């Protein structure tokens, strides 16, 4: 993979953002706007997971923990303090960053399978703390009473349009930052570790340090996704931090393409659209989703973008 001019990424991001922001000027569709709001949270979540998984080869089963932590930290700060929204969001992401640094510091030395299990164990521990610590988190009923969505820079986030604009901007900036990480020297180092860790080690790379950095950054951006999710549901729920939610992110990564930067975001869009479309027609959503997953895993054997790039090499970026 040849180094990537950062300026091109910025241009693509700016164009994408302008298009997304322009759509409501021509046609207001609440369902489309909801979709983009949810997608922005989910895309950050899935793309951040791909930094350890696709880029570094560290399979984390517990990524939902940071998504949930971001949501809870943000929602609790908004409910319990008078902090302004951006300050609460930045603090929530900082808390998540610290948490993922701590969990990462404990876990990154373990080899692939054990790393997956221990991240899962941490997530389950976090989940059982959320459930048990009822006085703070509301337990299984979640944080109730809504998040006061204080105005920021003239943005009134209880208005759907403003929330849509806010989430789109945050998501595009977040993805751009992740793109920057993945094309930076750190990203290259991570891929080298993935492909051949002995060689990376001989070249003087301190493996655990690079891995810890990747894991921490991923946790931070998952936390940012969690903040957006909390804004959408106006609360925080233990399901955000539960195992099936980590599973969603993993599916998104696998469905969209593990080796393409935009793969996870595309996978997230497919999963959300599939969910929205299928639940309209049948209550047997699991049956349909299961068959789709099998088709990808056993049939195509790779995600959509990876498949396209393989099928039509010129389109590869």
């Amino acid at each position, binding site marked *: 993979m040849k180094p990537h001019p950062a300026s091109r990424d910025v241009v693509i991001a700016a164009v994408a953002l302008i298009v997304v922001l322009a759509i409501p000027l021509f046609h207001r569709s609440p369902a489309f706007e909801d979709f983009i709001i949810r997608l922005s949270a989910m895309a950050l979540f899935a793309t951040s997971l791909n930094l350890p*998984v696709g880029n570094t080869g560290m*399979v984390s089963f517990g990524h939902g923990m940071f998504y949930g932590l971001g949501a809870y930290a943000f929602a609790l700060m908004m409910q319990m303090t008078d902090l302004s929204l951006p300050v609460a969001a930045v603090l929530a992401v900082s808390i998540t960053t610290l948490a993922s640094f701590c969990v990462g510091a*404990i876990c990154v030395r*373990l*080899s*692939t*399978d*054990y790393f*997956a*299990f*221990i991240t899962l*164990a*941490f997530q*389950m*521990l976090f989940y*059982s*703390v959320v459930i*048990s610590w009822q006085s703070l988190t509301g337990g299984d009923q979640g944080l109730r009473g809504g998040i006061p969505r204080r105005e920021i820079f003239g943005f009134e986030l209880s208005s759907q349009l403003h929330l849509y604009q806010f989430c789109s901007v945050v998501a595009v900036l977040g993805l751009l930052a992740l793109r920057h990480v993945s094309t930076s020297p750190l990203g290259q180092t991570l891929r080298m570790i993935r492909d051949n860790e002995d060689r990376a080690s001989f070249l003087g790379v301190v493996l655990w340090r690079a891995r810890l950095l990747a894991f921490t950054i991923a946790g931070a951006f998952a936390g940012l996704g969690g903040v957006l999710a909390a804004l959408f549901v106006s609360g925080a729920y233990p399901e955000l931090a539960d*195992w099936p939610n980590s*599973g969603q992110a*993993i*599916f998104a*990564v*696998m469905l969209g393409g*593990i080796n393409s930067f935009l793969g996870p975001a595309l996978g997230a869009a497919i999963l959300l659209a599939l969910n929205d479309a299928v639940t309209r027609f049948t209550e*047997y*959503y*699991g*049956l349909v*989703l*299961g*068959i789709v*997953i*099998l088709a*990808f*895993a*056993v049939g195509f*054997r790779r995600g959509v973008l990876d498949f396209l790039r393989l099928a039509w090499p010129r389109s590869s970026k």
Partner: protein
Amino acid sequence: MDLDALGACLTTPACVVTQATSGLIVGMLLFLVAAGVTLIFGVLKIVNFAHGTFYMLGGYVAYSALGATDSYALAVLSATLAMALFGVVFERALMSRVYGSNVLMQLLVCYAVVLIFDDVVKIVWGPEFHAMGMPPAFQVPPLFIAGGVVPPFYAVLIVIAALIAIVLGLGLSMTRLGKTVRAAAINSQMVSALGINTTLLFAIVFAVGGGLAGLAGALAAPVRSLSPGMGFSILIESFIVTVIGGMGSIGGALVSALLIGMVRAFGTIGFPQFTDGLIYIVMIAILLLRPQGLFGRSP
């Protein structure tokens, strides 16, 4: 937290005996389910995330078979055989296609199977929960052994679980098939190069793993509720057992299942609202101090 109650229990012989007995029962049932996961991982290096589904289907098959034949023994037998067959089909049709792929691909295939069969169960048996009820032969008062209470049904379950532990343990170490399986666990390419049909071997391993899960589901059906999605909590539990005991070690699974049984039995007295958290902390500690588990071979 209720450390006083825990202290009081630990100084009362009757309490220690009763809770230890119930820890033993919980542990043996856990072992029954987890044995299949650890066996499959040991040989194929595959984490069978669909194991809970095997267990669930085993329970439902037994439920229907009991309705049809009125014999609990036949119900258990048919659940075991049906799930052994299911295991082979699952292995041949799906899992064999993702051998050698990364663990995420295997996770995806298993999870797809979980999703599909949760819905299939809902279509076939309905969304409401079912209870099989205790077979008439076991509707007798509990036994009192050394101050501890042991229901006869659980006594039978413990004996069956112990027999399975012995048969698996001895089978793996003494028989030719067992030796081949162990060799395949270490180096399946070498075993294949020696002219042994590893395809057949892998199918057999999945048949045994599936059969064990079906057996566990059928044996648990009289005392547990059947509902779509019931496999999930079982999966998590057997997963924890397998990780703590050491992936692939039958003896390790037995020890760690009993360990968790004891944590649950005494945790419910000392930390009634944080027993689960306690188990995850044990799991994290084990993974950090001894990632290969209590009895696993170091990688």
